C-alpha cells in the first residue's frame, strides 16, 4: 500500500543496484512500520501477552518463600517471556501479509527475494526490541524491587537482548513464512521454532544472567556467551537468507 508513496524518480535514470536494493528494503520496512503505527496491533498484543506472562510468573513463584531471590533466575524468566511474545508477533507479522494478499503483491513486484527477507526480518527486530524495551521496566518493577543493585554494567543487558532479537527475527521470519501456509499455524511455528532457538536462548540467558548478577568473572562469561550469540546469529542468518528464496516461492 505505502510502496506507492515512496518517491519515484522523474526520469528512469539508471540506478546502481545497491542503492535500488536499499530503497526497496526501506520501502518494505516502512510499509510494516506505517501499518503498525496505524493499527498498533502487534506491539499491543505482544505487550499485553508479556504482561500476562508476568502474572503467571507470580503464580509460579508464589510458593517459593521469602528467602528466594527472583534475581537468580531473572534472565531466564525474561527470555521465556520474549520467546512466547516473539512467537506471537512473528506469526502475526506474516498472517497479515497473507490474509490481505500483500505477500503475493510483494512477490509480483520486481523486488529481489533476499531483500524481502531482510526487510521483514528487520521489521520483526524493531518490534521485538520495542516489546523488550517495554517489558524490562515492568519486569524490574514487579520482581526486582528488593535487589536494589544490579551486579553488572547496565549497558550489557540491551546488548544481550539485541543479539538475541536478531537471531530470533532471522530464523523466525523464515519459519513464520513457512508456518502461515500450514494447517496448524501457531502450533507448527512453536514446534519448529523452539528447538532451533535452543542454542541461542542458552547463550542469551547466560549473557543476560551475567549482566544482571555480576560477581566474579562476569565480564568474561558475558563476552564468551555473546560470542556464541554472534556465531549463532551469523550462521542462522546466512542459512535463513539462502533458504528464503525457495520457501517464499513455494
Amino acid at each position, binding site marked *: 500500500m505505502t510502496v506507492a508513496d515512496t518517491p519515484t524518480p522523474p526520469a528512469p535514470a539508471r540506478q546502481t543496484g545497491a542503492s535500488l536494493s536499499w530503497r526497496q528494503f526501506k520501502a518494505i520496512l516502512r510499509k510494516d512500520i506505517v501499518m503498525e503505527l496505524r493499527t498498533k496491533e502487534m506491539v499491543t498484543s505482544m505487550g499485553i501477552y508479556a504482561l500476562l506472562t508476568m502474572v503467571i510468573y507470580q503464580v509460579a513463584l508464589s510458593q517459593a518463600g521469602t528467602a528466594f531471590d527472583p534475581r537468580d533466575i531473572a534472565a531466564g524468566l525474561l527470555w521465556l517471556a520474549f520467546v512466547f511474545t516473539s512467537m506471537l508477533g512473528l506469526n502475526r507479522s506474516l498472517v497479515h501479509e497473507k490474509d490481505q494478499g500483500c505477500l503475493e503483491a510483494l512477490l509480483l513486484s520486481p523486488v529481489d527475494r533476499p531483500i524481502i527477507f531482510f526487510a521483514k526480518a528487520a521489521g520483526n527486530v524493531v518490534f521485538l526490541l520495542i516489546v523488550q524495551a517495554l517489558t524490562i521496566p515492568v519486569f524490574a518493577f514487579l520482581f526486582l524491587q528488593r535487589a536494589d543493585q544490579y551486579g553488572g554494567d547496565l549497558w550489557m543487558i540491551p546488548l544481550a537482548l539485541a543479539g538475541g532479537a536478531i537471531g530470533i527475527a532471522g530464523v523466525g521470519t523464515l519459519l513464520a513464512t513457512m508456518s502461515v501456509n500450514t494447517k496448524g499455524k501457531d*502450533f507448527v511455528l512453536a514446534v519448529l521454532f523452539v528447538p532451533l532457538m535452543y542454542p541461542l536462548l542458552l547463550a542469551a540467558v547466560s549473557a543476560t544472567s551475567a549482566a544482571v548478577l555480576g560477581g566474579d568473572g562476569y565480564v568474561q562469561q558475558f563476552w564468551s556467551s555473546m560470542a556464541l550469540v554472534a556465531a549463532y546469529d551469523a550462521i542462522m542468518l546466512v542459512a535463513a537468507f539462502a533458504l528464503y528464496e525457495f*520457501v517464499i516461492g513455494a
Partner: protein
Amino acid sequence: MRQLKVALVMLLIGGVLTTVAFVMAFTTAEMQRFGTVTVDEPLDTAFPLMEVSERGYTYERPWFSQKIFYFHVPVAEASFLVFGVAAFYSIRFLMRRRKEFDTKARLAMETAIVFVTLTMITGILWTRAAWGVWWEWEPRLTTYFIMTLMMIGYFVLRNSIEDEERRATYAAAFGIIAFINAPISFFITRLIPSSHPVVFQSGFATSNLIPFIIAQIGMLMVGYAIYAIRASEVRLEERVDVLKDALEG
C-alpha cells in the same frame, strides 16, 4: 523389485552381524573395570562388596553397563549419518526439484528417527546404571534431545501441509536448517566439559574394537534395509495410484 531383494539380504546379514557383535561383546571383548566406589550405607546390589572400613562400604564399580557401548555408540553414529543423508537429499531436492529426492529425504529421516529412538533408549538405560539417574541436562544429552525434537518437528511440518510441492520445499528447507545442530551435538563433548564419555580419545583394545566395528556395520546394513524396504513400498503405492487413475480416467 531388485532393491527389495538386496534390502532383505542386507537385513539378514545385518541382523546376523549385530547378533555376532552381541555375543562377542560378552565373550571375546576385554572386560573393562572402573575401580571401586565407596558409599556410606550398604546397598542392595548384585555388585560385589569389596571392603568394609570406617570410610564406608566399598563396592566394585558397575562394569556391566559398559557393554552397552557396543550398541549405543554404533546406533548413535548411524543416527547422525542417516540424518546427514536426509539433509543431503534435501539439498538435492532444492537444487533439482525432483520428487524422488523429496521421497528419499523423507525416508532417510524416518530411518534416522528409528536410530535416534534406539540411541535414546540405550542411553537412558546406561545413564541409570552409570550415573544413577535416568536423565541429566548435560550438553550431549540436551543437544541430542533437541535434535530429536527437530526430527519430530520435521514430520509435524510435513503433515500440516496439503500441497505436495510446497510440503516438499518446506520440509527440505527445515531439514537443512535442522541439520546444523547435528555437528554441534556430535562434537560438543570434545569442546566443553561434559560428563558423557568420549571413548575414542582414551585408547582402545583391539578385542573391543572388533565387536564394535561388526556392530557398526550390522546396524548400518539394517538401517539401509529399513530405508530400502520403505522405498519399495512407496514405489508400489505410487504404481497403485497411477493404475487407479488409469482405471477411473
